[in-house]
């Protein structure tokens, strides 16, 4: 399984890359590779922030129960 890294992992790796780039000393090839990886990680991190759909439901107890009726006993 090759899952996209989780947010915390991606963020940590991204911060490490930025710190490495800021320290300097990598050759150009490595710099560009790190830039690309950093950009990809940034997309992963940002994708975690884009899911919200804006729905709030306020249910009375009987409404909530009606909604889930028939589950749990299956």
């Amino acid at each position, binding site marked *: 399984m090759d899952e996209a890294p*989780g*947010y*915390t992992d991606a963020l940590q790796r*991204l*911060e490490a*890359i*930025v710190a490495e*780039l*800021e320290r*300097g000393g*990598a*050759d*150009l*090839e490595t*710099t*560009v*590779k*790190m*830039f*690309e990886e*950093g*950009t990809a990680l*940034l*997309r992963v*991190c*940002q994708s*975690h*922030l*884009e*899911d*919200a*759909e*804006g*729905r*709030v*439901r*306020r*249910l*009375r*107890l009987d409404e*909530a*129960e009606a*909604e*889930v009726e028939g*589950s*749990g006993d*299956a």
Partner: protein
Amino acid sequence: MYGRPRIHHVPSEDLLAGALPVGRFVHGLRRMLQEEPTLQRQVLRGEVGRWTRARSGHVYLTLRDDDGSMDAVMWSSRAPPRDFEEGAEVIVLGSVDVYPPRGQLQLSVERIFAVDRLGDLEAQRRRLIEALRNEGALDRARRPLPFFPKHVAVVIGAGSAAEADVLRLSEDRWPGLRRTVIGVLVQGEGAEGELVRGLEAAAAMADPSVAARQDTPPVDVIIVGRGGGSTEDLWAFNLEAVARAVLRMPVPVISAVGHEVDVVVTDLVADIRASTPSDAVERLLPVRADLVQHHDELEARLSTASMRRTHDARQGLLLLRHRLAAAPTTGFTAATRRLDALTGRLSRATEARLRQQRDVVSNAGQGLKRNVDQRLAADRARLAELDAVLRSTDPRKVMERGYGMLHADDGRLITSVTQLRAGDALMVHLGDGQATTTVDHVKGGEHDG
């Protein structure tokens, strides 16, 4: 008839000027009492003497013990629904006050508890905690909260201020987060049953098949709680059925019962204990705007550092050319030109990336992103090409074949014997290091050593 008044003379002007109207005096006394902290919100113990509920709903009572007694009043908004019997042992929370129309000292009571009932409840609570401890429920492994919750169920007082707080604060921290509020009774008769049923409904919403039917993500965390209240108001959260329901929940539960001192049983069995419903939201949700800002900062640093690297490379190249002033430089001229072009491209690409990522955050299209990716790929190919050029013209490669470079001690590159005199100290650069040496003789050139 008592004859003449006792004041036999007309008071002096001074005395008249200094006399306080009695009403003002009483009000001043009242203020002094109200400002004295030791007389306000005191917990007192005693037994009920007189107990009268007026038509207005206010209750007038006397609190007494063997050493003394005091009149007290409970305003209708504070008065308990049931009357207390004369002689009942009680604890009250009250403040000393003066009733100005009569100058009467009285205790204004906010809360009253029957000592026995509280004692019984407390004993039950202790037995429950002990039982849960013996079962290992108190030191079970706590489940971590989801890092980014997708669907939060909130079991809370229907229409309560706490519900409004939770909705507002969660919207502030994570706009658009999916939330399902299940409004229940949280105090009084029926609270125990409704809390249990509310929790069960929330648990059902965590079932993926139920969630799919509702077209929602499954509930992945549950907040159960209420705003602050008296020990008695919070009591439902000390009951066994509620505690056991919390323990049955398939996803992490935050107990969020508003209180400062006491711990309720749901606090002990939940995965996380929060001090209020708002505190639960703060523990659960990061501030999305902060994360976005952090991402933006990292993005800017990523671009800046990458561009600085290409800038450094160009500077290095210029330096190299300077040092190799006497050597053929065609390769360097080409390399410098390429690097200039490349730096320009990378700079445009990163700027475009910055703009484009902002667009992503505001849900703009993806076309520009592909464009930038292609540019970066092209830049990368050019960088590789450049790297090869750089390698082929690196002076160290030349030196590895047995050539050396000479520098005078002031750093000048030595390219002619005319620059040398016997006795000069020189630095010899070879492929893998440097050595110092001294000139013995100089031959050739115009200089005659």
